[in-house]
């Protein structure tokens, strides 16, 4: 049994910090009591984001604390008082049930890491068990031998905290599993509170992706990143709908994404830009400017977290082993694109989900009111291709040897499922409107 319960103390502390922050900012009193699950996960997200920011650099933590306070107190002001929740409490119950089932699946797995990158991530978490700043100190030591060098440290630091800073294999696996559960809970609860998305379709598309079940039982970061990416997209969509309950999650999600993996910052920026695209109707549509402020805040925050870490690495003389640009290479893109195609055709790994996502995205771009979601999905793919065109040879090699694209596509399955769910609801609306 994987000891997920080890994460409870850290989650309680994160929750307390997040609740105190919202209380101080004067937000809490305005929320509707039925929102307890969403409140809880938002508080944990605030606390976890602040912890990770402090670990990356204490100055960044202080800056994020101030920014969060100002954002909650002033930035969301026009969207308040909150609208009456558009979804039934049954949606929240179903979301919690899904999270409980996923938790059970992880908890019943043996507490043993089985995949290459999972072992690598856990070795970072093991360094992090020596104390909150131990991983940063080791990563910034050019002779520290943390391989590969230059990677973000958020996942290792968070995973170590969730394993109660115990360095045995069982506890480390429990911390990594808790990170997956946390990401799943964020996504499920944000989805449950989102308007105009068919939740059944979203869950069906994700559940019908066999590779999701492989990653669910591992401490790989691709599934957590994918779930947080989709949650961020829905949070920014909430900003356009004038739903402050969802919008308040945008800032902590941007911090978490940018500190978990390098591509996390890229996804956050792409989604924030896509969310500003004009919509076909003027319904709600963030007339108060909350959506613009939220998007800018996400971009600035994600780039700041990534930038501060990169600057610290540069000042310490540590090379980013896999993330230094190698110069544009048109010739390198042939094998990269071919292997992207091969991975997309891997029906044993993705079932029919990628086919449904492609059709859903095209439909949404052509007809729907939520083009931003579809463009966010397309933008993430294009941005990754652009990064590979100028990117380091090592990552191009990962792409050309077939180990990069399956995991990249897996990262985008949750966002793709949301696109299909939004397209589904839009098509029903169009039919109803005649």
């Amino acid at each position, binding site marked *: 049994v994987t000891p997920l319960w080890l994460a409870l103390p850290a989650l309680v502390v994160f929750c307390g910090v997040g609740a105190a922050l919202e209380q101080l900012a004067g937000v809490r009193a305005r929320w509707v009591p039925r929102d307890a699950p969403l409140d809880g996960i938002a508080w944990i997200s605030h606390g976890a984001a602040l912890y990770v920011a402090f670990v990356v650099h204490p100055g960044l933590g202080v800056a994020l604390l101030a920014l969060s306070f100002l954002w909650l107190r002033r930035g969301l002001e026009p969207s308040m008082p909150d609208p009456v929740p558009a979804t039934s409490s049954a949606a929240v119950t179903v979301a919690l049930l899904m999270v409980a089932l996923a938790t059970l699946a992880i908890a019943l*797995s*043996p507490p*043993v*890491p*089985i*995949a*290459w990158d999972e*072992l*690598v991530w856990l*070795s*970072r978490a*093991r*360094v992090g068990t020596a104390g909150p700043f131990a991983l940063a100190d*080791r990563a910034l030591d050019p*002779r*520290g*031998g*943390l*391989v590969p060098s230059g990677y973000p440290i958020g996942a290792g630091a968070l995973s170590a905290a969730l394993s109660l800073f115990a*360095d045995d*294999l069982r506890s480390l696996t429990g911390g990594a599993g808790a990170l997956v559960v946390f990401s799943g809970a964020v996504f499920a609860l944000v989805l449950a509170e989102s308007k105009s998305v068919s939740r059944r*379709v979203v869950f*069906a598309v994700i559940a*019908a*992706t*066999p*590779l999701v079940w*492989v*990653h669910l*039982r*591992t401490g*790989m970061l691709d599934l957590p990143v994918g779930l947080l990416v989709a949650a961020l997209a829905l949070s920014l969509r909430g900003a356009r709908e004038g739903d402050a309950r969802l919008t308040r999650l945008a800032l902590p999600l941007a911090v978490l994404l940018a500190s978990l993996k390098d591509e996390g910052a890229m996804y956050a920026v792409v989604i924030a830009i896509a969310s500003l695209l004009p919509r076909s109707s003027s319904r709600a549509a963030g007339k108060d400017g909350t959506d613009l402020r939220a998007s800018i805040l996400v971009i600035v925050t994600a780039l700041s977290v990534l930038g501060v870490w990169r600057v610290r690495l540069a000042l310490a003389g540590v090379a980013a082993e896999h993330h230094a640009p190698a110069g544009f290479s048109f010739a390198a893109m042939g*094998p990269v694109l071919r*292997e992207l*195609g*091969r*991975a*997309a*055709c*891997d*029906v*044993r*790994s993705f*079932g*029919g*989900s*990628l*086919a*449904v996502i*492609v*059709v*859903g995205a095209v439909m949404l771009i052509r007809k729907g009111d939520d083009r931003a979601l579809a463009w966010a999905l397309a933008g993430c793919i294009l941005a990754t291709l652009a990064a590979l065109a100028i990117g380091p040879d090592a990552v191009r090699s990962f792409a*050309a*040897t*077939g*180990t990069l694209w*399956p*995991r990249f596509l897996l990262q985008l399955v949750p966002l793709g499922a949301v696109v299909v769910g939004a397209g589904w609801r839009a*098509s029903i609306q169009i*039919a109803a409107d005649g």
Partner: protein
Amino acid sequence: VPEELCIATSSDLVIDGANGVCADTRHAAGQPLSASTVAPLVVLVVIAAVLSSRKVARAHRAAGLGVLLALAALPGGYALLFERADRPSNLAAATAPIAALHEAIRDFPAVPHVPHGPHGTCTVESACLACEPIARLALIDRGCAPEQEIVLHADALRAGCRVEGARLRCGHAAEERGP
């Protein structure tokens, strides 16, 4: 795809387990895309597009989408439940060698906590690709005495470890394994 290409052993799990339900993409990497590789996705996209057409009744569309997703997930689901090394009936057996190798390597060093390099300060001689990340995890915060050495043979995950003086030897040398 021949059966031997799917994730069959604990070593396969470590190397390819998260890269796909089976190791299809990595094993075929570098080869031209064939029609048989692309055809299933094209067929699925066409069916999904037809189902999304406004000519299809909403009830039929929902049922069709469900059937499409369920049928397309069958090959992968079958591999997960019955073929892969970490299938439910074999999960404990597949993970036990990984845990055992990790514990053997972690318990070996005589000098505690001397961080230096991906293997701490230990000398690791490895002919076992899948053992590399396991050794890294075990030794990331460990230190070895100068005379200590860890030798990982190709069958280290299968054969287990033994201490020989100042050396931890996991698996058997090629000449010991025989033909």
